[in-house]
């Protein structure tokens, strides 16, 4: 039962003068507690005004992505004790405007998601009374893509995004490729449109922070490299 110090970024929009500051909370961390358990414990027992997003607490909804000790992760699936540090620094996702404490405005994330037309585009009429067929091999092509929970950890970790707030970002690229790679999708051009853009694919410098940050162990960089090839093929033949 080690005593930990949680240093948490505080920001109250109603108190602009104070701006951002770090507040320290001592906490006896129990074995098995996740970062989210710790934050809840602080909120529920020490300071009710501490604000963060959470919902599923099982790593599937994507609410609780934040920066812990300088790395983006899901608070709810990170065991506090495995961080092996008695000081735990918790900050909001970098690159997004902060609404309050650890809560960021994800509007830019959603906007760039919309930009890639994130839905299956089909042109041939659908079969009636039947599903479309897709072989297990074709289906396997979107493994590692469809699992994205839109947590934003990847894009928020990307230096290209820090430099350009309109950068579509790895989550957008991954989503675009999820459809491009789907054997049922017939809208490759539409998905790619927004990517060949000033704020699009060419801003990715293969930095791999997105891969390191993704809590679902997805590999946006791989998707990005496939998309770049696809676009180049289209242009050069």
């Amino acid at each position, binding site marked *: 039962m080690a005593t930990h110090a949680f240093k948490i*970024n505080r920001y109250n929009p109603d108190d602009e003068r104070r701006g951002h500051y770090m507040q320290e909370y001592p906490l006896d961390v129990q074995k098995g507690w996740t970062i989210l358990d710790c934050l809840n414990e602080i909120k529920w027992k020490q300071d009710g005004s501490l604000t963060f997003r959470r919902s599923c607490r099982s790593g599937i909804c994507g609410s609780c992505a934040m920066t812990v000790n300088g790395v983006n992760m899901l608070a709810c699936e990170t065991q506090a004790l495995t961080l092996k540090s008695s000081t735990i620094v918790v900050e909001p996702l970098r690159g997004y405007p902060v609404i309050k404490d650890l809560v960021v405005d994800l509007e830019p994330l959603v906007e760039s998601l919309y930009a890639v037309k994130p839905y299956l585009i089909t042109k041939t009429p659908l079969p009636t009374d039947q599903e479309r067929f897709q072989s297990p091999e074709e289906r396997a092509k979107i493994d590692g893509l469809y699992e994205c929970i839109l947590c934003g950890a990847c894009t928020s970790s990307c230096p290209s995004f820090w430099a350009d707030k309109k950068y579509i970002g790895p989550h957008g690229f991954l989503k675009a490729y999820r459809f491009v790679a789907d054997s049922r999708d017939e809208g490759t051009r539409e998905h790619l449109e927004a990517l060949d853009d000033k704020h699009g694919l060419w801003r990715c410098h293969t930095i791999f922070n997105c891969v390191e940050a993704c809590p679902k162990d997805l590999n946006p960089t*791989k998707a990005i490299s496939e998309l770049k*090839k696809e676009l180049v093929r289209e242009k050069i033949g």
Partner: protein
Amino acid sequence: MRVIKHYRVHLGTLAWILHRLSGLALIFYLLLHIWVIHHLIGGEESFDGIMERFNNPLFKFLEVGLIGVIMFHLFNGLRVTLIDMGVLVERQKLLFGIAVALWLVCWFVISVAMISRFGGVPFS
């Protein structure tokens, strides 16, 4: 506005920063180099004279550094290109390791050749 803005530097970030810095260093070196060489077309005497001046330990040292920068950018550039081609994307750290190993080996070998022979001006 924000208090701490620290984000952990992963291997990939390190590679990118070094690639950027080396690339920038190289382009400025290249411009300088073209400028200098241009002024040397005056003829044999001035060329060799200048070369003689470069043939001292300080410039050798700088040149060894230059080779290091070029070789890093070169091998990391090849790493990036391989990843862009979809090669070993999932093993990027291994790929970086290979690039670093080749970089160090080439750097060493070329430096030895350079120092042990004579002063040369790269890009000549």
